Structure formats: C-alpha cells, structure tokens
C-alpha cells in the first residue's frame, strides 16, 4: 500500500455521494498509514472468559516458569551475573523456538547493567554478540567474539558462534579455521558437523554428507539437539546434491529428534517446507505447518503452499504477511528483506512493481547474508526481471565457493544466458 500524504486526500472532495466513497477510501488509507496498522476498530469483549491472547504457560512450560523466577530474582539483585546470563540464554532459546524477537529484547534487558560497557564479563560479551548477530549486526558481533577469544582461545561458546558468523558471511576460510580451533574442545559430532557445513558449501558436499553420517553413527552420546542440527545440515546437503530420498529421510529424522528435544525447530520446519514446495507437495506443507503461523517464516510457507494449491486461504495469509511487513517497515526494521522478496515473487505474480521491489530486496539481503537460500532468491528475482547485472554478486559467490547445487547451477546458467 502506498501512503500518499494526507493533504492529497483533502482535495478528493466531491459532492456526488458515489464519488464520496472514493474519498472515504482515501481517508481509510491515510488512517492506516497514520499508524493504525490493524484495520479493526476497538471492541469490548462480551464475556470475561473470552480468551484474547495466548502466551507461554507458567503452569505447563518449565522454561517460562524459570524465566519468571529469574526475572523476579533480578528485580531484587540486578547485578547477579549468574541469574542475568541464565535468563538471557533462556530468552534467546525461546526466540529461536517460537520466532518471537521480543525474547531477544528481553535477553538484552537482563544484561542491562553490563550492556553498554566496552569490555563486559566474557559471558555477557558472548551474549551481546549473539544478540547483535540476531539483528544482523555482524561486525560488532565478531568484534565481541574476537575479544573474548583473545583472552581465552578455548572458549567453546565464543568459537562456535564465530564459526557461525563466518559461515553466514560466506567467509569459508575463516569458518574452517574456527572449526579447527573448536574441535579439540567439543564433542565428536559437533566438531565433525562444524567442518562438514564448510565442506558442503565449498565443493566437497558428498564427503561432507558421508562425514556427517559417520559422526552420527559413532557419537552415541550426542544429544537430540546436536542430532537435529546435524540432520538438518545433512538434509540440505543431500537436497543440493539432488539426492531427494536421502534428503527427505534426514528431514524426517530431524523432525523426530526435535520432538525428543520438545521444542519446535523453526528453521528445520521451514527448510523441510521449502523442500516439499520444490517437489510440488504443497498439501503436505499445509499439514506440516498447521497452527504454526506465528513465526513469519512459517506463515510465508503456509501462504506459498496455499498459492500453489489455489486455496482460498492464500488471500488471508498474504494479507497477514503484508501487514507484518508494513508493521516492520513502520518501525524501520529491514531484517525481513528475504521473506518480503519471496512473498512478492510468490504471491503477487502479476504485479510488475512487486517484481522490481523483490529484486531490490533480494540484492539488499544478499549483501548482508550469503547462504544458498539467499543466492537462490537473488538469482530467481534477477531472472524474472531479466537483470543479469543485479545477480552478479550471487554468480560470483557461486563460482568462488564452488558450492554444489543443481538448483543454483540451473538458475545461474539461465541468468548467464540473459542478454
């Protein structure tokens, strides 16, 4: 929705009643633009037992109970570093489990006494880096991690995060080095998986998949959380290699392990949903993601599935996504670029302006994050716009990394064939 300034509506003054409807529409637009992002008018619920909102249950969710207890303890003693860092971690885990970034803000709040210090205690500093990367502020994240590791090169947490930040920035040499420095201090499976993710992105995908399988078989003590992660990596690697049956096996094993963990794994669900969408199995996506639309990433997949199925729900899902993107834009949040671009390409197929905007967002996204999904989005958006130049960073990344991916290879060939 474009938001013309209010003065423009004042001129839409017509006496014919039917024309007045035009003006009413203009006013509605301006009201929506004025900050009332939701179109509904306030209401007074009819009954006291009407449920207005669902939150984590303190009765049923031990983590929610622990967060409350820690928050109360911190209210009495805000300088208690143990309680503060524990609360921050719990909030960050909750953010990963349900996709609600409020938890990231609440994690930051727990660390308030140290947050602004140039050199806070190592535990706080690692958390500060974790929360910084969550907002895509990668430079400060690496700076904090580097400082912690300079003081203690064996800090496993800091080293693991350092590898992860290097991966998302497509700095594979640095990621490989972080994994090598991590290996002596961590488990067999984590060490193998860390290196395997680098191999999988740099032309050694088959070896990486074999190493992941071997490490999972050998490391009987591996936790369910470790296995979810390793299986997700394995599934993606097999998928890129075109081994779809093996990929699907890894995805479903991963989902089974995440049920053992007892928490949803939003990333795994999204990756499996994309796999199913690519295979033309949208109906299974609808079943997989039922009632999981609170996370934008899963709502997007629900909408893409509805679009593929010609389901009437797509209008509602698409409007819901549009509202979330508008709310983020109002706040000045640019971290939704990837989802917004996919939404524009997938759900507004006949809208020329949407395609151009999708390409701009894909370019912006790829400048921040360089993973296979980011490259694929940029190549697809550029292909639709027939803009070979815009895709140059993704083409360069693909040839430099030597990543093996049948989808990316096909897209790159079609983009390179553009005039």
């Amino acid at each position: 929705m474009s938001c013309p300034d209010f003065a423009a509506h004042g001129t839409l003054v017509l006496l014919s009643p039917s024309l007045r409807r035009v003006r009413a529409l203009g006013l509605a637009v301006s009201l929506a633009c004025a900050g009332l992002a939701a179109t509904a008018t306030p209401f007074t619920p009819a009954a006291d037992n009407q449920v207005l909102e669902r939150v984590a249950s303190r009765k049923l969710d031990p983590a929610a109970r622990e967060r409350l207890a820690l928050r109360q303890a911190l209210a009495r003693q805000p300088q208690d570093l143990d309680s503060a860092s524990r609360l921050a971690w719990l909030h960050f885990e909750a953010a990963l489990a349900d996709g609600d970034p409020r938890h990231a803000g609440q994690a930051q709040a727990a660390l308030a006494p140290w947050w602004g210090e140039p050199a806070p205690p190592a535990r706080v500093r690692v958390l500060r880096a974790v929360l910084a990367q969550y907002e895509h502020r990668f430079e400060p994240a690496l700076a904090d991690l580097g400082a912690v590791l300079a003081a203690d090169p064996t800090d496993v947490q800091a080293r693991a995060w350092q590898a992860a930040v290097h991966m998302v920035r497509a700095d594979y040499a640095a990621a490989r080095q972080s994994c090598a420095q991590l290996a002596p201090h961590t488990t067999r499976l984590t060490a193998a998986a860390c290196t395997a993710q680098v191999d999988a992105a740099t032309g050694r995908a088959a070896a990486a998949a074999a190493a992941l399988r071997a490490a999972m078989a050998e490391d009987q003590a591996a936790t369910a959380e470790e296995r979810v992660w390793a299986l997700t990596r394995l599934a993606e690697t097999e998928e890129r290699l075109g081994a779809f049956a093996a990929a699907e096996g890894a995805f479903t094993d991963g989902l089974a392990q995440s049920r053992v963990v007892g928490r949803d794994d939003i990333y795994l669900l999204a990756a499996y949903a994309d796999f199913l969408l690519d295979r033309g199995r949208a109906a299974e996506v609808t079943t997989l993601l039922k009632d999981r639309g609170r996370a934008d990433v899963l709502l997007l997949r629900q909408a893409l599935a509805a679009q593929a199925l010609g389901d009437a729900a797509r209008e509602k899902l698409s409007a819901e996504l549009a509202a979330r993107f508008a709310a983020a834009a109002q706040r000045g949040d640019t971290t939704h670029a990837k989802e917004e671009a996919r939404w524009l390409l997938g759900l507004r197929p006949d809208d020329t302006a949407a395609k151009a905007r999708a390409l701009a967002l894909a370019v912006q996204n790829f400048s921040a994050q360089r993973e296979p999904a980011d490259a694929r989005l940029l190549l697809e958006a550029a292909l639709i716009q027939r803009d070979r130049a815009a895709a140059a960073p993704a083409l360069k990344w693909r040839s430099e990394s030597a990543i093996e991916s049948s989808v990316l290879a096909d897209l790159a060939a079609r983009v390179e064939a553009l005039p």
Partner: protein
Amino acid sequence: MSRLGRGLTALLAACLFYASGTALAHKPSDSYLVLAAATEPGRLEGRWDIALRDLDVALALDADGDGSITWGEVRSRHAEIATYALTRLAMRADGAACRVEAGAQQIDSHTDGAYTVLPLTVTCPAAPTAQKLDIEYRLFADLDPQHRGLLSLTLQPGITRAAVLGPHAAVQSFDAAKPNRWQQWVDYGREGVWHIWIGLDHILFLVSLLLPAVLLLAGRPPRWAPVERFAPAAWEVLRVVTAFTVAHSITLSLATLGIVELPSRAVESVIAASVVVAALNNVWPVVTGRRWAVAFGFGLIHGFGFASVLGDLGLPADALVLALFGFNVGVELGQLAIVAVFLPLAFALRHTALYRKGLLIGGSLVIALLAAIWFVERAFSVKLLGL
C-alpha cells in the same frame, strides 16, 4: 549447565539461526500511539495500543498461568495497566508538564495479537501558545530495550507526523508552532478553487445559467437570438455569478459558524434538483429576465454543500474565519476561471446552430438528465450511475 554443554547449545543455536538468517524474524514489540490536536486549544486526543503479550511480561496478566489471557484477567487489571503505562509516558509543552489521562480500555487486534486500547486525553496548560511539544517515552524500556512506540502525531490539521519512540531517543521534540496564517489562508483558498473545479454539480448549475447569457428571447413565438454586443452578455454573466457568489457565501458562513445546520442528504438532493431546474429552464423558458434571482435562490443551497466540504477538510478552531474566507475566495476564483473560458467561447459561437440548438437545447437536456439521476441517487440513496 557445564561449559561444554553451553558451548554445544550455543553452536546448535548459532547454526540453526544462521542457516535460517532473517527467516526467524518476527514482529518485535511495538505500541501504537496516535495523538491529534482536539478542537479545544491545549488539548490532544488519541489512543495508545499496547500488546497484551508485552503487558503480561510486566504485570503477569495471565494471573492463573494457564497460557491464556482472558478478558476477565485484563479487565480486572485496567487501573494497574493504565497506571503502568501512563507513568512511562510524559509530555511537556514548552517545558510545562501536560496531564495525560486514560479512558475506558478496549481491545484491538494488530498483526501479532491482541492489544489493549487506552483512549488518551492530554491537557497542556501551555499548549495554546507553545512552540514545542516534548514526548518522553519509557514504556518497557527496562524489560525490552528493543520495544518501540510508533507515534502518529497531528498537531496541525492535515499534517500528520510519524516517529519511532524508544530508549534510543527517550525524549523527542515536535514543532508545535501554529502554521503560518498566510500559508493557511492560501491552502484553504486552493481547496476552494479545487472544489469548484471538481464539483461537477456546481459547474453544471453555473453553466446552465450562463448558456443563455449570450442570447436573447425575441419574437413571437419567442425564439433564442444572439445578442449584438459583448457588454450586455458580460453584464448578464456578472449579475448571475455575483448573485450566486453572494448567496452561497451567506449560507457557507452561516453553516460553518454553526448558526444554521441542514441535513446533508437534503442539501445534496436540492442541489441536484437545482441543476435540473436551471437546465430545463433553457429548454422550456419560464424564468427569462431575472436569472440572477434564480442563481441567488439556489446559490443559498449550494453554500450548504460547500460548508460540508469545508467541514470535512478539518477546520482550525483558532482560525475558523480565516479558513472560511480563504475557502470562499478560492471558490470565487475558481468560478471566475470557468467564466473566463466560457464567456469568450460562447460569445464567439452565439450565431451558430451548434450553440443555439446543440449546446443550449441538447446540452441542457443532457445536464438535466444527469442531474435528475443524481437527484434520485441522493434523495433515495440508490446507485444508478457508476460515477
């Protein structure tokens, strides 16, 4: 948790997040604060929407901890919610504190769930002359530094400003100075011109009265014949336009100042009827001599139509007369521009059959038909044309 255990969790979380990148992004915590200057000087009115999900963190709204926040749990805490919120929002006009009060709370839905809606009334003693409004926003600053208040502020009619409030800039200042009077006058004048130009019913009424101005009824049976000289035609046009202007200025003023009020459906219906009458009078002349009197009579009702437009534009309480005057002058200038185009053309064409038959008779019939349809639409609230 052991150091190794934490490391594992960290690595898993890191890589899961990274692979997902922005995919995990979700709507962060926002509140929506909408404030607009009220008609009484020194007063702002609006609403503040705050997520129940956020209030639950601060006030444990979910009293029984079952994961569901019910209306009963919210309603019983209304006083507490209002106190919590209002102690975290301060406003000052030129440094003097404003009083912020909340009315009865309701519920609204935003994209990420249910919000409580606090209707706000802000009273600033210094505001009538204030140059600057400061807003200090500290809601949830201690619980979620990423929380933001999305402000939509309308201090001057027609100028809505958006701002993002939060701990990154806890106090923000907004220019509260009154708009430049001359500029305001010009703005309302422009609205007046625009309104007459796009108000097809006003134009057609005027045109219906002006079409015969370059002709005379002569002979037996009476027939339309061209006038000889330009001056009598121009005088006739001046009389009609002046009468129309004087009449609608009177009623526009009376209605805008609240002295006379008429139901808008009746006004709009009569305006449509006036166009029918004026157009048919050209085909079957009844009033021939005193067209200015017709212009005056119906001009009175057109003035009420202008008034409803001016009302919809939003009137500055402190500059009502100025806005009224500016708008009216704009309407007259708009009319003059139409006349300036019409009169030379009509005078040039007055000898032609195209003018006397095609435009005067045919054109008037078309105008009458169109206006008749408007009349039915307006009087009976039905839709006949897609106009």
